[in-house]
């Protein structure tokens, strides 16, 4: 029932998707319908079982639902994508969330004051910015900023030493183990987290251990009970009779939480925050379990795995409480410190430090916007306003790139090399919501943003023009692939099995001398390993998505003709290229190239779910080249010129090379265009590498490309570090502007988008994805130890899906320190996304008002919104008003 509700709130374009894995409504838990379903389900089961405390139980269930919604999911490493760590909290504003978070954990959301002082000294922030920022803050939060002056705010910081005191405790809620640690000098928290890590990693293991857990099929709580009732570790550390006590806990985690809460005797108004604090003490595992409950659809269920995790964490806390805390003295723990306040503490008022941090952050963002918008404004003088332009003939070659910030650099250089080429920005999955099934592999790969689920499946195969040749060749190479992989698995089994590992080392150990040597000098096969298994050399260019594939199994949809036409049409409409197509149109996805890197998927295309954009580009090119499809599109009003050809390509973001696919399918007439294009991208790639080399410590272009090949390289490329803006405008607005690879750029012409549907699509899909990326990088650079995954040199892959930092400890979410810092300075400047849209304010307002998630983001200052409307620039102020900032 939930799914039907979710579908109606999504934009029409994606109605073709079967289901939504999750909608922001579920994440924010704002939909009251959603909450009611859960509660009523819980109440009815409760009525059947217990008459004793129906209200307490269903209050608890409601509380747990709230807490679940606040935890951001963590994707496994194969599909790693940047996730907004505050998703689920975006229905509040940034400042109040920072206060809420600081109460329950030791994470911070604002950079240290010295970061801003450095920028002031470097004259990146002007005193004028400070004044304007204070004015903006006072407008938005008059109750907190009234009567404050710049001088007084600065003095607060300077009095506190100006140094990073952001770990000073405004934390109000602590777990029992944390309190016991401080009092006794013990390390109970670490031990508990290690235990939970151990249980979760064996329960969710994806194939690392050859002896899997016997209790994998059960729910997490029951599996934990089985393990913990046999595990002597806690008893060895001094918790007597732990195993017996675990067996005596009820089998439902919600009931267990109820019982455990009674032992610690937390007052009812603090239960929710305290349980949230418990969940945040194992935040990495909570995030991963959240992902799993979303995948198997158990988010709304009463006793799902995330509630199990909270129950487990609480159980350990209560065990410590019972054993270690002396009853008389510590009975009030951990409640005593918040009842000792004498009423001076008000949970809803952020403290001075947060107010100052917020103000400084706003001023930093204003400084950045000032520079960017004035640069954009200048463009107005240099380029023709499209309203008055004579119809400009389209350029001969057009290239469509993903909106990724890395595309900005190469697009600029490509346009600088040649006048015959223009570039566009579009979502990296090219509007093709597909799942891609490589041959002879078990599971298909979703090639679209993680918020959506695939509408159809496409198989990998040999692309030959005649289907007869394809069939007869299919058998042999697929069998070769299966044989090769089976043999590979056998070798791996021989290496790790107890009976043969010793002999393996003696027989083949000496051969690893060559592996070590080759890897050290950087000769490694860095193409996706196994991609060409079984395929002969000359057939390799032919390996790719095959469109008229047969359905592999029941319930899997394929691409039939109507769907083809619909997808092709939507690509061109959303791109704004229903007319004015050039001779050669390149659809260019992107992927990275790196060795020995667990975060490879994080550097790949996020719009394709953490995978390469190649399959999508090739499918889209096939659709748009298909003559039948073109005829149907012409009927629908989209006229593709007969001599326009589409070709797919992939931009290797690590080496800045562009590889073209299916060149053999191009007619003779276009070969000269293609050769010219290859020369252009070659030159542009060289210039891009030189520019990137400046950022990587002044190294040469060749050294930049070589980073893709070394197994010890922890910074193969900077990825999306530095992202700060999202520009939705025609290319003429940003042409030749050096934005330094810091902006997502989506091509949009509001004159062609009469009914505003394309703007709605952009603001509800790519903009949300960009905000996720931006907030992930923001959090990982502001507080890497809480929101990020720590130091890459200590990383240890667990269960083949996650990362531990070191021996044990919590699962790590977020980005590693090496992805945001180069050793001397932060490479990602923590700035919230500045969205700049060239469109009428009314159109933008309509989207904001109709979509709750967009409204939450802009009203809560998670992103800032600026409109360029008729040569005037307006800033969105909270509450739905527009403020003019500068005239062009």
């Amino acid at each position, binding site marked *: 029932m939930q799914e039907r509700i979710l579908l109606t709130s999504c934009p029409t374009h994606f109605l073709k998707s079967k289901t939504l894995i999750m909608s922001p409504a579920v994440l924010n838990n704002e939909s009251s319908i959603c909450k009611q379903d859960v509660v009523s389900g819980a109440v009815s089961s409760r009525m059947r079982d217990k008459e004793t405390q129906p209200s307490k139980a269903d209050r608890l269930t409601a509380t747990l639902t709230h807490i679940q919604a606040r935890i951001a999911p963590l994707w496994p490493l194969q599909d790693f994508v940047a996730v907004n760590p505050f998703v689920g909290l975006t229905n509040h504003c940034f400042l109040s969330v920072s206060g809420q978070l600081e109460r329950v954990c030791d994470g911070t959301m604002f950079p240290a004051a010295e970061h801003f002082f450095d920028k002031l000294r470097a004259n990146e922030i002007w005193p004028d910015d400070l004044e304007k920022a204070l004015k903006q803050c006072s407008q938005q939060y008059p109750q907190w900023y009234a009567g404050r002056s710049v001088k007084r705010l600065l003095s607060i910081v300077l009095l506190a030493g100006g140094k990073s005191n952001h770990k000073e405790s405004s934390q109000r809620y602590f777990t029992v183990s944390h309190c016991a640690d401080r009092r006794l*000098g013990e390390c109970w928290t670490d031990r508990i987290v290690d235990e939970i890590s151990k249980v979760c990693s*064996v329960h969710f293991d994806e194939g*690392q251990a050859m002896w899997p857990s016997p209790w994998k099929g059960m729910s997490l709580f029951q599996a934990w009970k089985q393990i913990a009732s046999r595990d002597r570790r806690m008893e060895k550390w001094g918790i007597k009779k732990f195993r017996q006590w675990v067996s005596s806990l009820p089998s439902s985690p919600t009931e267990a939480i109820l019982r455990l809460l009674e032992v610690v005797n937390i007052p009812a108004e603090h239960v929710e925050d305290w349980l949230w604090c418990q969940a945040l003490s194992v935040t990495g595992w909570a995030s991963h379990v959240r992902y799993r409950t979303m995948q198997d659809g158990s988010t709304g269920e009463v006793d799902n795995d995330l509630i199990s995790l909270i129950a487990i964490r609480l159980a350990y806390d209560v065990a410590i409480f019972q054993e270690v805390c002396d009853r008389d003295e510590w009975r009030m723990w951990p409640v005593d*410190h918040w009842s000792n306040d004498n009423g001076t503490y008000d949970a809803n008022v952020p403290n001075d430090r947060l107010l100052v941090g917020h103000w400084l952050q706003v001023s930093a963002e204003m400084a950045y916007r000032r520079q960017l918008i004035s640069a954009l404004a200048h463009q107005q003088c240099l380029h023709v306003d499209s309203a008055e332009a004579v119809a400009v003939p389209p350029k001969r070659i057009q290239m469509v790139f993903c909106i990724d910030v890395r595309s900005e650099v190469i697009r600029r250089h490509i346009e600088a090399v040649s006048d015959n080429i223009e570039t566009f920005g579009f979502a990296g999955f090219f509007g093709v919501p597909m799942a891609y099934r490589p041959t*002879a592999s078990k*599971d298909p790969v979703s090639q679209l943003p993680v918020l959506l689920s695939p509408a159809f499946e496409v198989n990998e195969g040999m692309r030959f023009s005649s289907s007869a040749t394809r069939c007869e060749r299919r058998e042999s190479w697929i069998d070769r692939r299966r044989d090769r992989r089976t043999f590979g698995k056998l070798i791996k089994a021989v290496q790790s099995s107890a009976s*043969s590992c*010793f002999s393996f080392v003696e027989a083949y*150990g000496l051969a690893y001398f060559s592996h070590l040597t080759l890897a050290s000098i950087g000769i490694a096969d860095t193409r996706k390993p196994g991609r060409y298994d079984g395929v002969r050399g000359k057939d390799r260019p032919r390996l790719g998505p095959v469109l008229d594939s047969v359905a592999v199994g029941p319930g899997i949809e394929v691409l039939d003709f109507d769907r083809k036409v619909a997808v092709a049409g939507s690509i061109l409409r959303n791109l704004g290229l229903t007319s004015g197509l050039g001779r050669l149109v390149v659809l260019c996805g992107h992927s990275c190239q790196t060795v020995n890197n667990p975060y490879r998927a994080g550097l790949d295309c996020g719009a394709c779910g953490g995978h390469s954009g190649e399959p999508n580009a090739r499918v889209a090119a096939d659709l748009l080249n298909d003559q039948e499809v073109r005829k149907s599109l012409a009927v629908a009003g989209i006229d593709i010129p007969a001599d326009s050809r589409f070709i797919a390509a992939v931009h290797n973001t690590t080496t800045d090379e562009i590889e073209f696919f299916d060149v053999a399918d191009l007619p003779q007439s276009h070969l000269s265009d293609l050769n010219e294009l290859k020369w252009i991208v070659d030159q542009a790639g060289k210039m891009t590498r030189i520019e990137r080399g400046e950022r990587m410590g002044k190294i040469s272009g060749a050294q930049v490309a070589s980073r893709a090949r070394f197994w010890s*390289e922890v910074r193969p490329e900077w990825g999306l570090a530095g992202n700060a803006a999202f520009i939705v405008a025609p290319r003429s607005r940003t042409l030749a502007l050096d934005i330094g690879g810091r902006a997502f750029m989506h091509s949009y012409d509001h004159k062609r988008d009469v009914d505003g549907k394309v703007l709605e699509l952009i603001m509800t899909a790519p903009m949300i994805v960009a905000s996720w990326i931006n907030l992930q990088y923001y959090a990982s650079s502001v507080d890497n130890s809480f929101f990020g995954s720590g130091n890459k040199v200590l990383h240890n892959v667990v269960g083949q899906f996650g990362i531990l930092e070191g021996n044990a400890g919590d699962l790590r979410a977020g980005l590693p320190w090496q992805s945001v810092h180069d050793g001397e300075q932060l490479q990602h400047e923590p700035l919230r996304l500045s969205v700049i849209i060239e469109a009428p304010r009314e159109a933008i307002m309509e989207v904001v008002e109709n979509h709750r998630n967009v409204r939450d983001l802009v009203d809560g200052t998670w992103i800032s919104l600026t409109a360029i409307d008729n040569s005037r620039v307006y800033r969105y102020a909270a509450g739905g008003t527009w403020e003019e900032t500068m005239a062009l």
Partner: protein
Amino acid sequence: MADSNLVYVAIVPLVFLLIGIVPSRIADDQVSRTRQIAIIASFLGLFLSVVAMAYLFFFGFRSGIWFLTFDIGSVPLGIYFDSLSSMMLVLIQFIGLVIVSYSLRYLDGEATQGRFLRWICFTIGSVSLMVVSHHLAMFAVAWMMTSLGLHKLLVHYGDRRRAVVAARKKLLISRLGDIFLLFAILITYQCFGTLTFAEIFSITESIRQSSFDQPMAAWIGPLLVLGAMTKSAQFPFHSWLPDTMEAPTPVSALMHAGIINAGGFLIIRLSPLVSLSSVSLQFLAVVGAITALFGAAVMLTQTSVKKCLAYSTIAQMGFMMLQCGLGAFSAALLHIVGHSLYKAYSFLNAGSVIDNAGRLQTDIEPVKYGDIGLIQLGFQQVLAIVIATTSLLIPIYLIDLDWSSKPGAAILGLVLMFAIASANLKAMRSNRLKPLLATVAGSIVTSFAYCGGFLVMEAVLATTRSSVSLQLIPWQTPLVIILAVVFALLFVLHSGIDRWRQTRLMQRLYVATLNGFYFDVTAQRLSERVWPKKAIGGSAE
């Protein structure tokens, strides 16, 4: 015989030790200079050791040993360089070069990279010194210096509590090993009157002819064995090893590839001394077998890749000690070299475990154990054993290997045969013809590779005075029974996991194995007695 042609061998450990004594602060400040010096030193070290090995190969194999001694005052320093030393030196220099070049990129941008490189060089220099030392005291000093270097590397991130805890555990166990070693050296001095290897070996060789009337000499062997056990993480001194992941990956690689061999090297180098008491070698064999079983079992349950590799190292070192205990020193040396290279590669490449797993997924599943009929299963097992035995016999016949004269060959041959048989069994279960054929061909290649490697190492050890050709150990019933039980458990481990996973016994065993049988808790408790925790009294904040 002293030979001044090989004096440059002394440069190898010296240059690393010189880098190792540069103060950390200077190393950090001058980090680019430190990087350059470290990589140049590594290349130089490898080059010199390869040249020395080539020299030994072309000119020295027949006469055997070269050494060079000089006394500074009364401090005896010298190089004892035979083919065993040269092999170990080349190995450690190669591993050192790979790790230093890896660390240059891996820790790029860290504020403490200079300090890291300094201690890596110090550790490499200490190990190099240990393998070429000619005097027991020098050996012991180098042994302790290696411990120091490793300790400093383990606490590279000194603010991580777990790193400090792990380093302390290792400190305690290492000091225990040092005590054993020092006592052994004292007794040796008392019985033999000298501590130089050359003289000790001369005396032990002459003992073979006549008897030795020093009763204390019987204690040298057990003490050396105990010392080696602590260094090579044998049961029950293994618990420091799995917790050492709180240091950067190159440290783990260096430790598992270069330093953990030190125990094995000790036994092989001093085998004339150790074999003075036959019971110590038998004890070593049993300990090694138990460690191998323990490590292999726990490795099966671990879910994080580095912990898996750590327990795999424990198992492999156990097997190596078993080989030493049986007197098969050439096989043990082959194991040391092969394991070093394999483990270094596995650790440094640990980040690609996801890519590799993804690459191997297929849409076909092997036949499950439960689906195979008993007759078919029996047939498959017999066929597998036939294939294994045949592939083992082919090289033996072709090379005319006299395996019955080699100590321990029967047991090791059986292990190899079972390994090949189990590989073939798995291939049969996969139900595809080409992989099965490839496995059969691979079996033959494997036994050739095994025999070839063994012969190389035998040739290496033949010219040293370290390798004692033991009489085939008189088979004593307790030893045989223990080894038989251990191996039986090792081989049925996997089918136990497959078939009987859900039984209550296996469930209890699973939880115990997952926890490494709780030995690390005991070790931790011990270290807490030495370094007690400080209670922060007073208020909660």
